[in-house]
């Protein structure tokens, strides 16, 4: 798979994810790539960002110089809060998540399977792991979007028939947005929706280690 194209930058990938969000949604953004999403939203985005460390109504990531250790997101980054924000403890926060009050979670991924399984907290060869809020979010969020590179640094696909890494949750992923494509997880498996500019359908198929349905009308991402 040496031919896998670069596709989107991380920033453009975040921008494409941002297009999935609609005013009124309650959104939780995972650590890493997903935290880049807010900077690609219009000012009047009308979203309410939940952070599992106990904040509803995160504004954005703020300058380092303003660092207040008690105003952080779940990744430890300094954040501002909007008028109408609230603070609460982790028991309320995860009650909110498991109870179905988060409309969309955007998480990073290590592997996504065509049955919707997600693995994103442990690489067996490294051992240990970092589950954090991922297992609760994967089960609790009404819609789960995975934002990740399509292939590993070594060139193997992160989209596969069955995950080989320890699972985060079964059959939880709704949409995968990668540097190459937007792929829906349907009852029948992966369905290609969009390709990144300059990336061909064939390249996406080649970079995907599972059957990928290609319906008519797959379009190029609008960024």
């Amino acid at each position, binding site marked *: 798979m040496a031919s896998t194209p670069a596709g989107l930058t991380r920033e453009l990938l975040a921008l494409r994810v941002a297009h999935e969000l609609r005013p009124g949604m309650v959104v939780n953004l995972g650590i890493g790539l997903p935290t880049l999403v807010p900077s690609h939203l219009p000012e009047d985005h009308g979203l309410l960002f939940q952070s599992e460390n106990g904040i509803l109504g995160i504004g954005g990531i703020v300058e380092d110089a303003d660092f207040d*250790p008690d105003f952080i997101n779940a990744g430890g980054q300094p954040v501002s809060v909007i008028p109408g924000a609230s603070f609460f403890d982790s028991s309320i926060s995860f009650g909110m998540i498991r109870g179905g009050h988060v409309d969309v979670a955007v998480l990073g991924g290590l592997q996504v399977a065509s049955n919707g399984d997600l693995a994103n907290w442990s690489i067996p060869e490294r051992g240990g792991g970092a589950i954090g809020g991922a297992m609760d979010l994967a089960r609790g969020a009404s819609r789960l979007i995975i934002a990740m590179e399509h292939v590993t640094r070594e060139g193997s696909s992160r989209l596969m028939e069955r995950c080989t890494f320890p699972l985060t949750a079964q059959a939880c992923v709704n949409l995968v947005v990668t540097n190459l494509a937007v792929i829906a997880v349907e009852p029948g498996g992966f369905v290609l929706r969009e390709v990144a500019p300059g990336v061909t359908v064939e390249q996406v198929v080649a970079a995907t280690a599972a059957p990928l349905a290609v319906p008519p009308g797959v379009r190029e991402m609008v960024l």
Partner: protein
Amino acid sequence: MVATIYDTPDAALDGIEDGVRIMFGGFVTSGSPGNLIRALCRRGTKQITGIANNIGFGDVLDELCEGGQLRGMIATFAIRASSTQTSRFEVQYRRGDVALELVPQGTFVERIRAGGAGLGGVLTRTGLGTPVAEGKRTLDVEGVTYLLETPLHADVAFLRAHRADRLGNLEYRGAQRNFNMMMATAADLVIAEVDEIVEAGAIDPERVGTPAVFVDRVVRCDPVVVRR
């Protein structure tokens, strides 16, 4: 009923012995009892079982590994798959020197809550079909399968809050509440470090995050802030 006020975090650890099970409040930088953790390092207490959300590169808690004080951790976030940095904890974990029980974060706080609230466990769908469920009982309730997770309790809890009053009421700010609120309920001895200690009544009763009954010891000290 009235909390005991200590002059230093070191003094506040009086009586803590080897083999202790300690809950550490905090989520990364917020609500983390860094002064108490460093006093625990200085104290040299060994064979500690720690219960904390995160132990990773740059966390004050990782300093406990320097002196080999940890027997193991129950945590949600310990060794990040994609991180390029290696914590002391990770090194010791790979050598088999420390144990690690990884818990999903929502389950983690519920298990602590159950331990503090006299409940027998937690029934959650989180973790089903993953390694987290291995060896655990499941239970069907009204046609849905849940994982049974057991309560967590500790000998001691270290907390960080904004202010305490002399009764032991704690006021949090921002994201400080995180695990501090529930850990306060689930340990035999609860020690809180705060920015300020005030007279009873100075904290608005509407703003008390942890009621006084839960807090035994209080010490004033500026927060330890470690940038990551």
